């Protein structure tokens, strides 16, 4: 009884908030606010330290600098072949490593970081994750360990915050805006803008082709092969 009242009272509350709502002005972000404080927090959390090349949002200026260096700086890639260039993410540590794997091991061993720290993605995960992102957004399996990679801050790129079934179409419009935005930037983004556009293009066309999607609309008896086992296992675990 009490819980029902809790739910219904919240539903009742919602209409009274919409007196003076305003939206985030960042292109591609569909967030809406009713208070300035809310907007400030949203902006500071998700739009402040954004990589202009891949539109990823990082939590701090330092992590953004490291990201740009490691992902979008060709000089870094060249130097990294000969010397230790990967910085430890913990401020004040100062150590550098030859590969991101070494750095990750250091973070886990010395700094007791979790192995799935969300702000230390390796570059080669990038492609895989972007294709997965669309599929796994509106699942209820997000809590499973290895699926959590999709729940990264890169999702803010497209501002898709609700589980709309028409995700395919809305993605396309956002992509074109961003592509334009990316292209306009004079920074060293030549190949990456092209690459991300290509990936986006792949995804949007995938709505026609048969690609595994972890959507709640999928019947529970269907099995898509290797990747889906995780999803099903997670679903079973949710039963309490």
């Amino acid at each position: 009884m009490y819980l029902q009242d809790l739910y219904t009272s919240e539903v009742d509350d919602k209409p009274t908030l919409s007196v003076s709502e305003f939206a985030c002005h960042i292109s591609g972000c569909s967030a809406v606010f009713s208070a300035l404080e809310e907007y400030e927090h949203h902006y500071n959390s998700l739009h402040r330290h954004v990589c202009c090349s891949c539109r990823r949002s990082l939590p701090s200026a330092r992590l953004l600098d490291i990201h740009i260096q490691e992902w979008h700086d060709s000089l870094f890639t060249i130097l990294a072949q000969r010397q230790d260039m990967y910085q430890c993410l913990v401020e004040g540590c100062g150590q550098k490593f030859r590969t991101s794997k070494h750095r990750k091991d250091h973070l886990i061993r010395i700094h007791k970081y979790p192995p799935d720290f969300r702000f230390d993605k390796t570059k080669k995960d990038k492609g895989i994750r972007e294709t997965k992102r669309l599929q796994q957004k509106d699942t209820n399996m997000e809590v499973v360990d290895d699926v959590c990679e999709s729940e990264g801050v890169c999702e803010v790129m497209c501002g898709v915050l609700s589980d709309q079934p028409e995700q395919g179409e809305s993605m396309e419009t956002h992509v074109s805006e961003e592509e334009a935005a990316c292209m306009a930037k004079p920074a060293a983004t030549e190949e990456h803008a092209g690459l991300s556009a290509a990936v986006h293009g792949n995804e949007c066309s995938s709505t026609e082709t048969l690609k595994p999607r972890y959507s709640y609309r999928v019947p529970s008896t269907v099995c898509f092969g290797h990747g889906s086992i995780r999803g099903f296992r997670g679903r079973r675990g949710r039963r309490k």
Partner: protein
Amino acid sequence: MWRLNKVRHKAGRQGDSLEELRLKRREHEKALRQARRDRQLVSKRLLLTEDEEQSEVTMDTTSGEQDVVSLFHKLQHSGPEREAHLKALSKALRDPSAQLTFIKQENSMHLLVGLLTGSDAQCRLQAVQCLHKLSHSPHTNVAPACLPATPYLLTYLSGQSTKFTELCLYTLGNLCPDSDAVKEKLLAQGIIPALASCIENQRYNLAVVEAVGFTLSQLLQAKDAAEKIIPMVLASSLPSSLLSVLTPDPKFGLAPAIECAWCLHYLACSEYSRELLAHGALLQCSSLLLSLGGAVAEGNREEGLELLVCPLLRCVGNLLSICPVDSLSSQVGDVRLVVSLCALLQTYIHTQPALARETAWVLNNLTAHSSAVCSALLTLSLVPGLIQLLPFSQGINTMVLRVLANIAHKKKEFCVQLARLGLLSTLCATLKMADQEMVTLSLEVLFVLLVSRPQVADEFVRQGGVSLLEAIQYNSEGEMRQRAAYLLEHHLLSYPSDCTADNIPCS
């Protein structure tokens, strides 16, 4: 093992089992006392939003626990109601038993961490609210359950969202005292550099500064802080940051300065306090104390002022004790600090006797090696006020007497001045006190005074001091008797033992 105990219990004699019971009860009481002490020492802060402060936690525990479980299930589905569910969860988690229920749910922390780092800023805020409530738990096994969130909380300290950063800081600060494992992890994850850069970048955001001060003070109060934590803190930019925010902002209030002053105190009473001297801590703290004392003297009764005065006094007192004598004058700065200290002393003597005692202690440390300070006390007419404090108890009179002894030890002229200001007659009163320490100190001071000038000895005899010393010769303490005898023989020898105030031969 247990079976043996059981058998022994049944077969044991009456006396044995009683003894065991007594032992068990003693152990139990000891554990209770320790727990009570720990609870008092461990302080946690709970930051509440405005509507949270107004609404009370009215639901009973069982429904609260059920709420938590159902909310947790609801949160596993994404959707626009997630934020509302999180808000409800945060409210439910104010209840300690609900906190336990939550952490026992499988993957609950994982879910919370996912929301903490997700792409919805409001969900992030509500998730950190939930973590904050969990960190405030009185149960010690809740803090280790929150460990998966700490690397993210630390990462977010370099963010720009004030409320969010505050909550991260208070959550981290609440987690520190609960277990050594938690502290170890936080240190390994770089909490000290994170705090250092946070306070540096957000120096003008006083709410964040206050939160950093709180978190740092929690770390510094750890039992083994001296081994690992304090050296790391001193090596960072934290000491200079703490000193730079020490002066309270009149609009914001005293809280940030209070937190930072306590951090400085924990650093100053460690074995590495010399490094604080190098940062100019003594100068900064004494000048702040000077202005605070002045404000108090003018009648400023701002609430909480003594919360700032206390750590500052302790800082100054401790730093004075390790300060090299030759750099004392440059480190202390304006010698009129003594005016402020005496004003504080007079203000707190009735309301906060413990604080008054600490003020007197600082005065003692100041006067110990500095003639300039002693001279200032005399020239600024502060001594009569001090002399009047000698009848007070609670450790204040002994400390004040030490101050006067310090003055007397410096120069003979000072002794004469002290005698003129009425110290001799007061000593006649203190020599009769029951407090042995007072009597010992009085004899010491008397000795210094008597050897300074013959006129002082005259005056003492005139006031009937000889009979007082004679009375001390019946004191239970052997040393006391010896001292009194010594004084009588060597410095009051020329006078017959039965002389009174009336018939002293003129000298």
